[in-house]
């Protein structure tokens, strides 16, 4: 499993987002512009093929924010290799390196 040869473009984009430190589903959606219906199934597939692992956020942090713990994703070693392979194939990825997050900004004024 985990050969970069089978990575779809969106999967490669997601891996790259993870590589750049965007670790939560919604953050990945923000940075890649992909819809939730694509990002989550892709994350599950990547996890199944061992390119990505998921962990739950520490309970204490979540409790402080009064919400359930979030699940975050990390690249595995295979994931990093697959990403390197995929970058070779999808050259444009290099040029479209994720720009700083388009996170919601504080209200103006």
């Amino acid at each position, binding site marked *: 499993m985990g050969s970069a040869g089978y990575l779809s473009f969106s999967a490669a984009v997601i891996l790259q987002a993870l590589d750049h430190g965007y670790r*939560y*589903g*919604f953050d990945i*959606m923000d940075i890649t512009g992909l*819809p*939730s*219906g*694509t*990002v*989550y*199934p892709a994350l*599950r597939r990547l996890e199944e093929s061992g390119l990505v692992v998921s962990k739950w*956020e520490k309970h204490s942090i*979540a409790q402080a*924010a*009064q*919400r*359930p*713990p*979030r*699940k975050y994703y990390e690249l595995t070693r295979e994931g990093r290799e697959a990403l390197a392979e995929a970058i070779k194939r999808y050259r444009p990825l290099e040029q479209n390196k994720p720009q700083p997050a388009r996170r*919601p*900004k*504080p*209200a103006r004024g």
Partner: protein
Amino acid sequence: MQPDSDHNRERPLRLWLSLIRFIGLIVPRRLRADWRQEWEAELRWREAQLAEWGRLDWRSKPDLLRRSLGSLRDALLLQPRRLEDEMFQDVRFGMRMLRRHPGLAAVAVIAIALGIGANTAVFSVVNAVLLRPLAYRDADGLVMVWGNFLKLGLERLGAKAAEYADYRHQSHVFAELAAFNMASFSLTESGYAPERISGARVTASLFPLLGAQAAAGRTFAPDENEAGRDKVVIISHGLWQRRFGADLNIAGKTLVLDGQSYAVAGVLPADFQFPHRSFPFAEPAEVFVPIVFDAAQVAKREGQWENFVIGRLNRNVTLQQARAQMNALAGTFEQQYRGYRGPNGEDGGWRITLEPLQSVVTGSSRTALFVLMGIVSLVLLIACASVANLLLARAAARQKEIAVRLAMGATRRRIIRQLLTESSLLALSGGALGLLLADRGTALLVRLNPGSLPRADEISIDGRVLIFTVAASVLTGLLSGLAPALAASRADLNRTLKESGAPLLTGWRRIQLRHLLVTGEIALALMVLVCAGLMLNSFLRLTRVNPGLDAQQVLTAEISLPAAKYADRAQAAAFYEQLLAKITTLPGVQSAGLSSITPLSGAAIDDPFSIEGRPLDPNHFTVAGHQTISPGFFRTLGISILQGRDFTASDAAGVPPVAIINEAMARTYWPNQNPLGQRLKLGAPRAPANWAAIVGVVRDIPHRGLDSAPKPDWYLPHAQSPARTMTLFVRTAADPAALSAAIRREVQAIDAAQPVTGISTLSQVIDSSVAPRRFQLLLLGVFAAVALLLSTTGIYGVMSYLVAQRTREVGLRLALGAQTRDVLKLMLRQGLTLALAGAALGLIGSIAVTRVMKSLLYGISATDPATFAVVTLLLVGVALAACWIPARRATRVDPVTALRYE
């Protein structure tokens, strides 16, 4: 942020969270909590952030909603996981169950393997023969073009050269068109014995039409179909290897065929074969030479209907449209040219027909294969019913387990799926074993094939057959598992759970279901047995047919004199006269004769003839088979002369022509009259042939096969109408086969370059004429035996079960003074009821089913009462015997034990 106030304030707006809850319902239970938490945490976190920034407004809320809607896709894509997990459990559990009951598993797997094996074997034949296209380029588009005089019974004629030209120029339905006619050549090469090889004269367009390219050299150029440039030959790969040692420098070498030199132009690839081996009118050619049409003959529309025409339809033309157009063309022939109607404009029913090449090649095997396919599907159904019955018995024993599972919260659907998984496991194992059986079986089938099964050498298990086998196995799993699963999952929890260990009561419904299955099995088995019985009956009748000749101790051999060397037919007559004189003086030879047709070889030529003094009746053209024979033919074959005399040496060329007719001809054309002295001739009254006077009447012999009724046939003396290809018949005192070397020696003493082919005994010829039927009978017999075995074990199983069920009752009866005989009768009556009910259903089914096999039968109707009766008795008898064993067991019940038995 105040959680409470926050909660209250936003409640009506937090549709996204409700969506997650709701969509979460379809996520596999095992994953559901985590899934919901992940989505909820993201949404809440985003919400909180937006709220913090004061931007949780009309613009961001739809975005949250959209994101939560995306979870639906996520949830849907997780569905296979649910199936995977539970299926895995089911399979594991199923394996464990089967391993715990290896006996049941083995019986079920064997039953299914027999059913699937039979189906796979027959399907692989159907696939090779009927479904797979022939090995030519786009073979589905190839059609044969036939001329027919429907009213004369002359069908599937080839084309005259002029007609082929008309097809090419006047019809617009063909993208490509080619003609070929068959010839056999004597291949003479120094250092080799002369050899008779099959050949074809072809138009240059044939090879491109078939998509054939030369493996070495080239194929023909169009101008080689012209006189003077036609002494070129293309040879088959086989001949190239056999006679030329696969010489790569073959091109340009010469080959002597019928005494003439041909330059070798090319060698065909090893996998190219034309005509197809199963083409009914000719054998695959080993040499191809250009066909040359004589321009004068074309102009006068002369010549024979001897050219096979093969075409490829235009892409935009359907077969229907092409047929209509060709029929219109046939109509113009009738109007414009002589020879398509009788001399007084009589309608001979001239039609041009198109027949896909594939169906020409597969011919009559279609019906037989469909019947076989039907039979094996019945066998598979019987296997399904058998397995269903076994599983039902298992389910009864497992009622407790199932009830516990239901009580612990398993849904009925889950139980059904579990049981179906088990039956599918059985079916797939059975299917795998069946595939193995089919592989062995088809190999055996090909080996036993008497040559009647077309394309037998192409039979193999390919992708399509594998798909069929898997599909059949899955279907078998469902069919055999569904009823038991439905029945078992309907358990009465309360009662089953309350009951203690020992015998489980089973509901009346379940017993009924088992009875129904056994009845069905017997009904299906009866249908299969009736089909096999009808075939057997036909075959027996056929072997009892008196062929009207004595085939013992007769040797046959074919001699085909080349036209190039024996251009004058009188030369041929002289050759054969000399040969006959030599053969009759050989030691051990009692008599010898010649004929242009071998009886029962299937080759018979029907042609119109005229009777002197009778006007041509346009609606009843007189058509009869005719052949050329030598004096001594009737004596050698033991055909009795009923009236008049045999031909003699004095019936020579130059004296008034004579003829001998058979009984059928005398009966048909001279009922209650003496045919002797009447005169007839080949063709129309004004045809150039001479009138021949009838000098004798002989017994009918079945020229066309034992299964066809005798038709009018007449014989002409060889001296007066010589033919180049003749069959020699020699009656010997001792073993006829010992004479073959001597015959070959005598032939080559007259003409050293003349090969002799097809040496066999007449008994062998007759035997091989019924071989196809014997083959069909063998196959049906095997399938019928399987059907009988499966249904008998089925009824045995049910009876054993019933006896076990009634042990107590029997014990009670015996204790109360019932006789063993009464108990036996009681038990047998139950079995008999089932058998009779099944037989009744089976008889109705048989009447419906056997209709399709009418054309395969001989001498009996498809609803032959005797066959039906014998088969029914046999089946009911076997069923009763199967009941007998368990019934006997019932009578040996010890009343005390039985009553103590809980």
